[in-house]
């Protein structure tokens, strides 16, 4: 009787889990912080009445108060509105960097591993060559060539981050490729593409996701830094990095709110992303 019950349970589809488990308390808190930040970027702009770009110099450097919950900046723009709208560019930028770098890096890593030989050597050379360029430098070069702006910065950082992803995928796939089950698939005559995409990729997916999460944190900092020095998001568009840059003069004039709040958001988001990425990495290694 009990045997029947066990087997029928085994065949039933597992229920879809939305909230991931096995991340520990730190991971859960980080995930919570990130959900809040994501909500801020998606629905936040609909909840904030103020226009983030409305200039009114008579309200410059207002402290937080009834009309301006977080105060205003040097041009009298509402800081809360700017931070909420700024979260969109601050998060979308790294998101695209991670998506592009992960997609291309995974393809490069899997291709290098499958073909091996000179293809692999070439891929490794390419990875090493791109590694030699700091991401920021590449982005400044791109800004010099194509003009400052978010698109150029995102594309340049995508290229800069590609080798990180490719290297992680390559080393994980290399181990996976030497596992016996891959030999069994090869002897069934399956093409390399099918084995790489349908078998190796799912087995390294946990690592890819964890790595993408960590990359998101670095990309957010890099993009914020680029906007801070003026090569990224261009004024008057709100962006956390640009807000910190614009708030520098305020710091000197005794109104540090602008730089402070934007920096706090960057730090909180990146800390949460890094913690989560770390936990995901531990989890994916534990299940390997």
């Amino acid at each position, binding site marked *: 009787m009990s045997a029947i019950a066990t087997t029928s349970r085994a065949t039933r589809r597992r229920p879809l889990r939305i909230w991931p488990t096995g991340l520990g308390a730190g991971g859960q808190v980080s995930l919570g912080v990130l959900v809040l930040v994501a909500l801020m970027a998606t629905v936040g702009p609909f909840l904030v009445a103020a226009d983030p770009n409305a200039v009114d110099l008579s309200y410059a450097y207002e402290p937080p108060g009834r009309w301006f919950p977080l105060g205003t900046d040097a041009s009298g723009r509402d800081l809360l509105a700017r931070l909420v709208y700024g979260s969109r560019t601050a998060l979308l930028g790294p998101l695209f960097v991670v998506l592009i770098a992960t997609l291309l890096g995974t393809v490069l890593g899997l291709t290098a591993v499958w073909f091996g030989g000179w293809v692999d050597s070439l891929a490794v050379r390419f990875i090493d060559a791109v590694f030699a360029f700091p991401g920021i430098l590449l982005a400044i070069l791109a800004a010099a060539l194509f003009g400052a702006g978010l698109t150029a910065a995102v594309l340049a950082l995508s290229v800069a981050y590609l080798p990180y992803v490719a290297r992680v995928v390559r080393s994980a796939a290399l181990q996976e490729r030497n596992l016996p089950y891959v030999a069994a698939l090869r002897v069934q*005559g*399956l093409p390399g593409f099918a084995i790489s995409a349908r078998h190796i990729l*799912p087995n390294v997916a946990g690592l890819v996701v964890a790595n993408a999460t960590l990359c998101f944190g670095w990309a957010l900092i890099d993009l914020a830094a680029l906007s801070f020095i003026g090569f990224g998001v261009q004024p008057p568009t709100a962006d956390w990095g640009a807000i910190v840059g614009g708030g520098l003069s305020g710091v000197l004039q005794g109104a540090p709110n602008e730089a402070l709040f934007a920096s706090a958001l960057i730090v909180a988001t990146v800390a949460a992303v890094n913690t989560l990425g770390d936990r995901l990495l531990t989890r994916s290694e534990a299940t390997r």
Partner: protein
Amino acid sequence: MSPLLSVENLTVDLQVSGTPRTVLRDVSFSVQEGQTVGLVGESGSGKSMTVRAVSRLLPDGARVSGRIRFADQEVLDLRGSALRRYRASDVAMIFQDPRAYTNPLRRIGDFLTESMVINDRVPRRRAERTAAGLLEEVGIPDPERRMRQYPHELSGGLLQRVMIAAAVAARPRLVLADEPTTALDVTTQAEVMRILIRMQREYGMAMMLITHDLDLAASVCDETIVLYAGEVVETQPTRSLHDDPLHPYTAALMQARPEIHQRAERLLAIPGSPTTAYEAPPGCSFAPRCRFAQDVCRTETPPIVPVGAGASRCLFAEELRGTLLDPLAPDAPEHLLPATAEVE
């Protein structure tokens, strides 16, 4: 009739941390259509490497020389899609540990149908029906339910039957079975072996069975090949192998195995330990462990020569024939003693 598979002078070197190491030396044999050939030897003797060379699954950096012919194809020259076609439809492989040889993330049904869908462009539904039929043939009840399960939900014996079903799915002409029952419970070993043999007969496939179990080889194989240190030391029809081994190593292997109906005071172990091909001494590689060994055995490399119905790689194969299994036989027969003993 030309053989289905013929291996000629196969030599394989593997790269182990930069230095080449020989694992197979001058291996030659052939397998006829529908024939069952046993590959017997201790660990490290090159059994697995031989079938891996046939299925072209040798590790990266392996250097291979010699010829492997399958029907009309030069197996060692196959590349790209020709190699894929050869693996997909000509040979199949069954491995020792079915659990390691299945992707834990994919369902059983997926494993069975993937090759049919991708290689033979069979519609998924039909592939699933075929797979279910195959599972029933290998004695797995309720195949539809099993196909929805993951490898970890099946016992080793069941999983090995799934592997057998997957191996015959493409109707290969040759099955390479690498110790297919070694990792299984003793109780299921016989059952799985029976299914494998039945499927082989039913589908008319040839089979190379790797085993270190001489009794198993005796009961299922037409021909037995004995490997030692990467060399073929004896080949013989299995019928006569048991009563009339041609190489001292084969005889020693047979004496080292416990008899079930006879209480043995102590088992006859082969002195020394098995050598691999790259550690083999000059001369006959079995000489250091051979109780019949002469001085000449340590200097002269014996060729493989036909003896009776088989062949043996022993300098004294003819002289020793018939005395190898006799535990009381003089360790060095008189007429084989060094020349000084004869001068009187």
